[in-house]
């Protein structure tokens, strides 16, 4: 059944073979890494532009507006124009700031979001580095991002920035627990940390359908907690523009600000990609048991379409949150995590373990 889906690894394997015949293995590795890096960078820029445009259009629909419609057809070039504007602005460093940390923080934040792209499978065989501890790698690397935010808040020498950074630190450290536990519930059922194994285990049904109520609960917790982890409204404590004017990036301007901005959108993409991979079957097509003809048609849709479709659906949900909910207060945010989400995820993890042991899933 799966043979029908085009496997991108045939292309990469053939390319690798062709390259190996021409030069030494070190050089091959170097060239392949460069190409992968360029692809990641390209995707990065492309996603940044697409997501900013999407956010503006989604918010416009919710706010009975039209949104960007002047630059380019339907305003599609608006994001590019904004980027050019940010590039041309002066990269100001305030006098009282810690120069090194201030300039290093945005770079660190963006490096972290680039690193997490590695184990995500964009299609069948289309993955940069399918390492065998994918889920662990993701949760480990994603926690480095908060250091960048703390660094930015501290180095700015601004009280608003400092408060924003401290809030963000408390928030990300707390919500990581819930994200981790909800990821673990899928890992328990799959029995593997490798992203490709997790996707393959959903060949005959996505975990959200196969995993009964416990997986649905962990999916909901994942969506809430990952919204909080990416500092998105209604959990945008770190920015909270009506309270802290701009939070940790109050003092940033120009391209340094753009890096934080871009990292935020890439982080949204990444958490949604992880959610889509673990709970919604990654690049696996939608199948209904028994309907062979329907399943065959679904298989003909290329796997990247499935992956990006699911991811963008989740991104839409997260944007929907942002434009309809008010912001929580910082103590309510921590109460929500420590008093509700964390205990629920703990019990839920036990339930999933029980399910896995007894084989109570399809």
């Amino acid at each position, binding site marked *: 059944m799966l043979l029908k889906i085009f496997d991108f690894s045939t292309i990469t394997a053939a390319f690798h073979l062709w390259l190996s015949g021409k030069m030494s293995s070190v050089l091959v590795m170097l060239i392949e890494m460069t190409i992968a890096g360029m692809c990641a960078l390209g995707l990065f820029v492309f996603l940044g532009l697409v997501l900013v445009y999407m956010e503006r259009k989604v*918010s416009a629909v*919710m*706010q*009975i*507006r039209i949104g960007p419609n002047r630059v380019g057809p339907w305003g599609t070039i608006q994001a590019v124009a904004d980027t050019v504007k940010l590039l041309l602005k002066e990269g100001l460093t305030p006098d009282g700031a810690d120069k090194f940390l201030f300039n290093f923080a945005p770079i660190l934040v963006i490096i972290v979001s680039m690193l997490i792209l590695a184990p995500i499978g964009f299609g069948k065989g289309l993955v940069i580095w399918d390492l065998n501890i994918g889920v662990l790698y993701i949760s480990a690397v994603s926690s480095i991002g908060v250091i960048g935010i703390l660094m930015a808040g501290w180095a700015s020498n601004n*009280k*608003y920035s400092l*408060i924003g950074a401290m*809030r963000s630190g408390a928030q990300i450290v707390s919500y990581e627990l819930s994200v981790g536990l909800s990821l673990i519930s899928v890992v328990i059922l799959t029995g593997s940390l490798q992203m490709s194994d997790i996707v393959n285990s959903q060949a005959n049904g996505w975990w959200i359908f196969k995993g009964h109520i416990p997986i649905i609960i962990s999916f909901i917790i994942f969506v809430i907690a990952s919204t909080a982890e990416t500092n998105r*409204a*209604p959990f*945008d404590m770190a920015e*909270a*523009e*009506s*309270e*802290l*004017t701009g939070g940790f990036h109050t003092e940033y301007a120009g391209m340094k600000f753009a890096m934080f901005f871009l990292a935020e959108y890439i982080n949204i993409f990444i958490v949604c990609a992880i959610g889509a991979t673990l709970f919604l079957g990654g690049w696996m097509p939608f199948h209904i048991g028994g309907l062979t003809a329907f399943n065959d048609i679904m298989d003909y849709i290329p796997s990247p379409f499935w992956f990006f479709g699911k991811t963008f659906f989740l991104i839409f949900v997260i944007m929907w949150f942002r*434009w*309809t*909910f*008010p*912001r*929580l*207060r*910082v*103590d*309510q945010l921590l109460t929500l995590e420590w008093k509700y989400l964390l205990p629920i995820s703990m019990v839920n993890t036990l339930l999933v373990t029980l399910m896995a042991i007894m084989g109570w899933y399809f």
Partner: protein
Amino acid sequence: MELENATEGQDDLIINVGPQHPSTHGVLHIKLKVNGETITDVEPHLGYIHRSIEKMCESHTYRQFIYTTSRMDYLSAHINNQACALAVEKGLQVEVPARAKAIRILMAELTRLASHQLWWGCTGLDLGAVTPFFHAFREREMINDIMEKTCGARLTMNYAVPGGVMADLHPDFVKDVKAFLAEFKGKFHEYDELLTGNIIFEERVKGIGYISKEDAISFGCTGPVARASGVSCDIRKLHPYDGYENLQFEEIIRTEGDCYGRYLARMDEMKQSMYIIEQLIDNIPEGDYQAKTKALIKLPKGEFYQRVETARGEFGVYIVSEGATTPYRIKFRSPGFSNLSALKHMVVGGKIADLVAVMAMLDLVIPDIDR
């Protein structure tokens, strides 16, 4: 005042909120002393938009000074004008035609609706929800258009003059107001869906910024802020003017005393304003829209005071006349100033985010506080 020269202690951080800050809605400067996220002291500083309007009024004639009051509480511009016109009429002892009275009330209630709509949108904005702002402006735009047709201005109307109103109603007025009422009634449920019933919103405002009935009275709070604490202070009921005594409407009094109470009080006031407009819109009396007054008004020697209910609370105009063409002294009693004085009482012990919620629910208009 101890914050004036305060130095940062071991645990305390002093933050200057404003004069440029997204949630002060103007140039209000608040000195905030925080311990972590908890507010330990707060002190509002005024003076950034002081234009000495009261002094300016002394050099203007009784017709002219009314226009400066549009620039105080610019969201209740018409009600301010109305108060000044009423005070001058008290001195002149002219009888305002019934038509002018009805028009004034209609405009005042439309102004109140527009002001509350803007407040509702800004409340959402302050609490982190951007979308309500646009929904509020959708309906507010219709009111502004009605104002523009009749008064020629959208915000600073300058429509009330001593003796009545400046011009007759636009022929489309009745039709436009009816269309607006139908539209707004149909859309009102969206307001509730977006904010009122939202669990995050309720968590953010319930029990926040509590002020008891006694404290509300002693701070001089008026308007929805006081009425949410159970103080009966609606001037339209207590000291009716321009024919409010002939209209049926309820004074919204709630007992919560917190931000949620103030929110619900304003939401209910919008419904009452619509009810008042509905009663009047088909019964605007025919006749003159202005009583005959002299071109250059001279008030007799004496003191004249008029209080009205603006969207924010009690607004008072106190005129001292020496018998000349310009007032000897004018004093305005603005609702925002008294309401702001209760800020410290409401927020100390709360979180930084509570300050924003409380300020949103006080519905501060800075030029009204700082004249």
